[in-house]
């Protein structure tokens, strides 16, 4: 599309012309346009967060090259505020200066956006770029209808859906703060969502945050609402496609968006869709899925498969139901991806029941950590107990019968009665011949006491004698199960020649 081409040109030109006072910006500028915005944003946001370079300078330079309207830059600053939020994870006081710094960053990050924004030259153009990066802050800002539309058209989408935000970014520090808060709370959710982009976390946050601010600052920005909704998968794919050029995808999005907008044919809807596009992929995914499905059934699947999955909306699950939004070619893949994700989540729920104390934990990441810790602890326990066994019984002369009896007694206490006992075992072991059992029983009864005492001091005479009656019963059962190994004790073994038999499972 023309827009995309223009955007590309713009990007290159922007980079060239903008003399970023800080190296960071330059570096970021040199990033390939096609690079996924997510990774880009992450690095840039976090590393170059600096408000060291005078934001105004940057903004001006950017403004000249990128933005048609200096005011739009201002608006973009608002987005920048969002960035701050993301990186610092904190609500900035959302001072304009901070916004500016953010804007710079967002500009870098939103390089995708500039491509998208054609020189239609309105505020809207700029904003979408920036907005892509700053979902949280953006969402708050009310957007001009015209701006929004424009932004919607051109916004790339790599992740931000900020078109709406652009309108009054600076003017609503509170809204930003709200966003920040929302972002903070949503982070958990975002993280749990699997973002396409490896670094998608900020996007995630943005995504989720976008949803929240919509609710909160509904009065502030009508556009916010959209986040959730109609947005197109475009944003999703654009944002998420780190691998592919976001631009091409965004281009596609634009067309789709327009179509969708046409379908909606409502100003609000269009705004929403625009906003949604801007929103980070995750949000877009969620929102789009929900709202767009009724509107545009023909949406194709997102490039979810590339990105990872975008789960459905219920925040608690951290899953986003992805709707096919693009490309028939990706349909089967993304569906398969979705199925795979569901499988994994299904198993995770299963594991959740196994691991004690995992019921309250929500979110895949934390739960997986818990599972890993649990497995490690179990393995350590095995090691510890084996050490204990080695020290408790230095001669390693385990009296099989005695141990079996003891264990069987203990086990039996906990488990079912003796009657089913042999049945359990017999399933695994072939039953010993009856004659053998009789023989072993008698021999065991005779010899059990003698080996027991020398084995370890723990065994007392009284115990053994008292056991004998029980022991015979137990051993009978045990031997019936078939697990008979020769008693290491010479005395015991001598009396049980037939006990050499071993039953292998």
């Amino acid at each position, binding site marked *: 599309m023309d827009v995309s081409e223009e955007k590309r040109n713009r990007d290159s030109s922007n980079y060239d012309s903008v003399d970023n006072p800080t190296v960071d910006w330059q570096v970021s500028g040199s990033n390939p346009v096609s690079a996924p915005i997510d990774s880009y944003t992450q690095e840039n946001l976090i590393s170059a967060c600096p408000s060291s370079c005078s934001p105004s300078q940057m903004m001006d330079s950017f403004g000249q090259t990128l933005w048609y309207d200096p005011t739009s830059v201002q608006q973009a600053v608002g987005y920048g505020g969002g960035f701050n939020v993301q990186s610092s994870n904190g609500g900035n006081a959302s001072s304009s200066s901070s916004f500016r710094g953010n804007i710079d960053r967002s500009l870098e990050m939103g390089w995708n956006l500039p491509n998208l924004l054609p020189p239609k030259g309105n505020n809207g153009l700029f904003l979408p770029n920036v907005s892509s990066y700053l979902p949280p802050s953006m969402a708050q800002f009310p957007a001009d209808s015209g701006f929004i539309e424009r932004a919607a058209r051109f916004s790339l989408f790599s992740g931000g859906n900020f078109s709406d935000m652009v309108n009054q970014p600076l003017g609503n520090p509170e809204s930003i703060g709200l966003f920040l808060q929302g972002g903070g709370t949503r982070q958990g959710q975002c*993280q*749990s969502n*699997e973002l396409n982009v490896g670094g998608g976390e900020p996007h995630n946050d943005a995504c989720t945050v976008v949803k929240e601010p919509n609710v909160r600052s509904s009065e502030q920005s009508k556009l916010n609402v959209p986040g959730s909704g109609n947005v197109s998968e475009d944003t999703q794919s654009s944002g998420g496609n780190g*691998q592919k050029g976001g631009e091409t995808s965004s281009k596609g999005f634009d067309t789709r968006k327009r179509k969708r907008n046409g379908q909606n044919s409502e100003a609000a809807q269009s705004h929403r869709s625009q906003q949604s596009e801007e929103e980070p992929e995750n949000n877009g995914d969620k929102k789009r899925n929900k709202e767009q499905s009724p509107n545009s059934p023909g949406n194709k699947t997102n490039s979810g498969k*590339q*990105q*990872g*999955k975008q789960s459905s909306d219920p925040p608690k699950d951290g899953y986003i139901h992805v709707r096919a939004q693009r490309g028939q070619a990706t349909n089967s893949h993304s569906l398969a991806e979705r199925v795979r*994700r569901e*499988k*994994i989540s299904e*198993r995770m*729920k*299963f*594991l959740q029941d*196994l691991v004690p104390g995992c019921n309250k934990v929500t979110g*895949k*990441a934390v739960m*997986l950590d818990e*599972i890993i810790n649990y*497995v*490690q602890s*179990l*393995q350590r326990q*095995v090691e510890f*107990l*084996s*050490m204990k*066994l*080695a*020290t*408790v019984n*230095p001669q*390693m*002369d385990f009296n*099989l019968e005695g*141990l*079996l009896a*003891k*264990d069987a007694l*203990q*086990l039996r206490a*906990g*488990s079912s009665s003796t009657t089913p*006992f042999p049945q*359990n*075992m017999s399933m*695994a072991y072939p039953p010993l011949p009856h004659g053998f059992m009789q023989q072993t029983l008698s021999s065991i009864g005779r010899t059990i006491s003698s080996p027991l005492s020398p084995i*370890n*001091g*723990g065994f007392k005479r009284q115990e053994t004698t008292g056991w004998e009656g029980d022991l015979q019963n137990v051993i009978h059962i*045990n031997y019936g*199960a078939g*697990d008979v*190994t*020769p*008693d*290491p004790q010479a005395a015991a073994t001598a009396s049980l020649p037939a006990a050499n038999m*071993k039953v292998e*499972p």
Partner: protein
Amino acid sequence: MASADKTINTDVPEKDVFAIHFLQSLSNLRIQNLFNSPDTTNYRVRKIKKAAYVSMARAAGGTSRLWSRALLRRAAKGNNKIVRFPRRKRKVTWKISSKRRRSDQRAPVVEDAAERLRNLVPGGGGMETSKLMEETAHYIKCLSMQVKVMQCLVDGLSPK
């Protein structure tokens, strides 16, 4: 999708089976007469630990489980024992590489954890993430069962 519970089967045998197997392996250790002059406790400890794992793998299902199979194979390598495994229908090696490449793209959050799990669970290296989860569930059950058995044993043998 089919209901999860039907497709995932993580039944483990009763504790008795584990106990029997473990005691059996311990007796084998004794028979080997390696502990007549056990100077190094570490050596004994390692042997016991290995016996515990092997017996657990046998009790849990022998070669019908991926993790137990890998465990037994690992143990057999050291002892130069010949362990017979039923022929597997599909080759795992190819799937490893292909699935790995794709899984890297999928939900990095989950995949990172899956990598760590693979290091912990025996035989996890060749499994896809969803299969890994199944094996982990079964492995956890068996491990906890083995721990209970060993605890009983220690309690029984410790001097009163």
